[in-house]
């Protein structure tokens, strides 16, 4: 087991290196750079621009170097834990991202927990009561949840609360707590603001898990070992939890790897619509103003979270199912 984990971690570090290269290539893609945007802004303000000024800016931002030099500079500072400066905000990326990333991770993880808490019981109910009213409701919800884009769900929820309750959900904090230090009151305020984002981000995942669990549990329930256990007099509830549910959870756990990146994706869009102070809106802003270190760092961090999610799901899979061997697949 230990050697398996070590091997997986080494493999992941390799992936992270590739990831950093891909990310850097992506953020270098747009024609022009932040400097040209900056100069255009200066021109618009009728500030005289000299060649020396441009040259000094170019050196300051390190924009004149060839691709690989820029990349190695970025990598070296990344290894030191420094993600460079945000051009747009004129502050180190670390500072800008800090709290937002923490909020993003909190939001994603609490969504993940909520999705499992809601989806697994419903999925089990749906499979054990096939063709009941509850099953049909769950199925309809499952299909609708998959078909409704996150941002649209956010809009609809905002529309409904606005028309019926007179306030629009948005943000994660009330105005008075926005800039305040962390306190008990601020946490309570955060919890009050959480439901709408959680519903919006979690719906698609919940729908998917209900459908997967229902399908795999239905397959398991018809198998011989369930009948055998029943004839031997094992109680229904105990029987269900002990054998078929455990087997049916397998495909769910193997999707955690995919679910975490999916939740991060969904959260990015939702955050933009609901104007949550998380990483999503910042990424959009950074991309639009070609703030390459900021955008690059964010894409890199989010993707790294995805890779970690995949690793965790693989380890969980080994833990829950002893039949899976500790070998790298392939």
């Amino acid at each position, binding site marked *: 087991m230990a050697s398996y984990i070590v091997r997986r971690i080494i493999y992941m570090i390799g992936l992270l290196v590739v990831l950093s290269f891909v*990310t850097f290539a992506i953020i270098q893609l747009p*024609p022009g750079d932040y400097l040209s945007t900056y100069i255009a802004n200066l021109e618009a303000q009728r500030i005289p621009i000299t060649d020396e000024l441009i040259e000094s800016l170019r050196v300051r931002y390190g924009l004149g170097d060839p691709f690989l030099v820029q990349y190695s500079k970025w990598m070296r500072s990344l290894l030191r834990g420094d993600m460079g400066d945000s051009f747009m905000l004129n502050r180190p990326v670390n500072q800008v991202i800090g709290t937002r990333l923490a909020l993003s991770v909190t939001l994603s993880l609490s969504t993940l927990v909520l999705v499992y808490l809601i989806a697994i019981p419903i999925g089990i109910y749906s499979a054990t009561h096939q063709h009941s009213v509850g099953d049909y409701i769950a199925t309809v919800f499952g299909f609708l949840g998959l078909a409704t884009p996150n941002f649209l769900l956010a809009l*609809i929820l*905002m529309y409904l609360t606005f028309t019926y309750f007179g306030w629009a959900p948005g943000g994660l904090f009330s105005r008075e707590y926005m800039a305040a230090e962390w306190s008990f009151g601020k946490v309570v305020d955060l919890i009050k603001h959480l439901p709408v984002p959680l519903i919006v981000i979690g719906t698609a995942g919940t729908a998917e898990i209900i459908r997967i669990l229902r399908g795999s549990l239905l397959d398991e329930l018809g198998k011989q070992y369930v009948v055998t256990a029943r004839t031997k007099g094992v109680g229904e509830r105990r029987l269900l939890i002990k054998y078929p549910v455990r087997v049916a959870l397998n495909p769910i756990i193997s999707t955690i790897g995919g679910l975490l990146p*999916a939740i991060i*994706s969904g959260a990015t*869009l939702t955050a933009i619509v609901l104007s949550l102070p998380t990483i999503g809106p910042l990424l959009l802003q950074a991309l639009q103003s070609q703030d390459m270190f900021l955008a690059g760092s964010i894409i890199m961090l989010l*993707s790294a979270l995805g890779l970690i999610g995949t690793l965790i799901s693989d380890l969980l899979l080994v833990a829950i199912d002893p039949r899976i061997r500790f070998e790298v697949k392939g």
Partner: protein
Amino acid sequence: MSTQPFDDTGAVDARTNAAEERYYLASSWTLMRRRFMKHKLALVGGTVLLVVYFFAIFAGFFSVADPFERHPDHTFAPPTRVRLFHEGRLHRPFVYGLKTGRHPVTRAKVFEIDREQLYPIRFFVAGHEYRLLGLFPNRVHFIGVDEPGVLFLFGTENLGRDMFSRVLHGARISLSIGLVGVAISFFLGCLLGGVSGYFGGWIDTVIQRVIEFLQSLPTIPLWMGLAAAVPITWPQTRTYFVITLILSILGWTGLARVVRGKLLQLREEDYVMAARVYGASDMRIITRHLLPGFMSYLIVHLTLAIPFMILGETALSFIGIGLRPPVISWGVMLQQAQNVRTVSLQPWLLIPGLCVVIVVLCFNFVGDGLRDAADPYK
């Protein structure tokens, strides 16, 4: 054999035998079709999709107004109600006239229905010029009303452009992007998955690692990064094509996995060995003998990949880094619905979103039906 010539049980046997025989003689495609036909939701979904695509293809014919034409007097007009009763009497379908007035207190612009003015809905009327199927200049439209009556079936937006006509034209872009994107994914997925599964070895390892890598990335941030790289100055068609390419960058990975898994399973079959002994080339074995063996799985996978791309386009365009106006797509139209206050006053701006949900739902139903049908021998 029975001694009596008209034995009942014999006749029943013969009938069941005939049914069984039909089952065993039917080709796998026939069996799949029969199974698919039993899936009611899939049939409904398929029908709705056919209708929607039909409307999209003939968008010009079905639209009431030019999708780019502005009606400055009718900005944010609510959907026009088509009525059947005038003063309690049955009438041919008609609409009342629309007056603009001022709210007595707030002085905000309000629309009032003018019950004096009746405009019957006419069929096959002459209207703005468009090109049927993009080729033949034409003026005939399915429905319309006489001037100065207005027919805004889905209302109008901030510039007073007819939402109904825009939804129809938007369907062209939004629905075709899924198909084109899936076609690209299909090509890449079959090629790379095929190479990976058929040759194995280090090529397989490399391709599998690339797929794992791509699948562990969060889709939307990656798409956002790539889409933001598309210069605003590019012509519309090029932007459209590049966005489609971006959407299919991740789409092919799932397909390649399916193709590889099936190939690994099928290449051990005797008929593949037979073909190889016979001297068939690798390419021929893959395309003629292996691909048809799991075509049904591919089709299922493709059907389920299309809605994913439609959602992707809508999302990217919605946040403003996908397609941009003046291109009409459902995502671009939804940009107007970003503000809650606008939406609460003009809920019809959400209609393109409703269309997205319906279309994606139908694709999922059809995909579900196809999945049941894909394995007809179960």
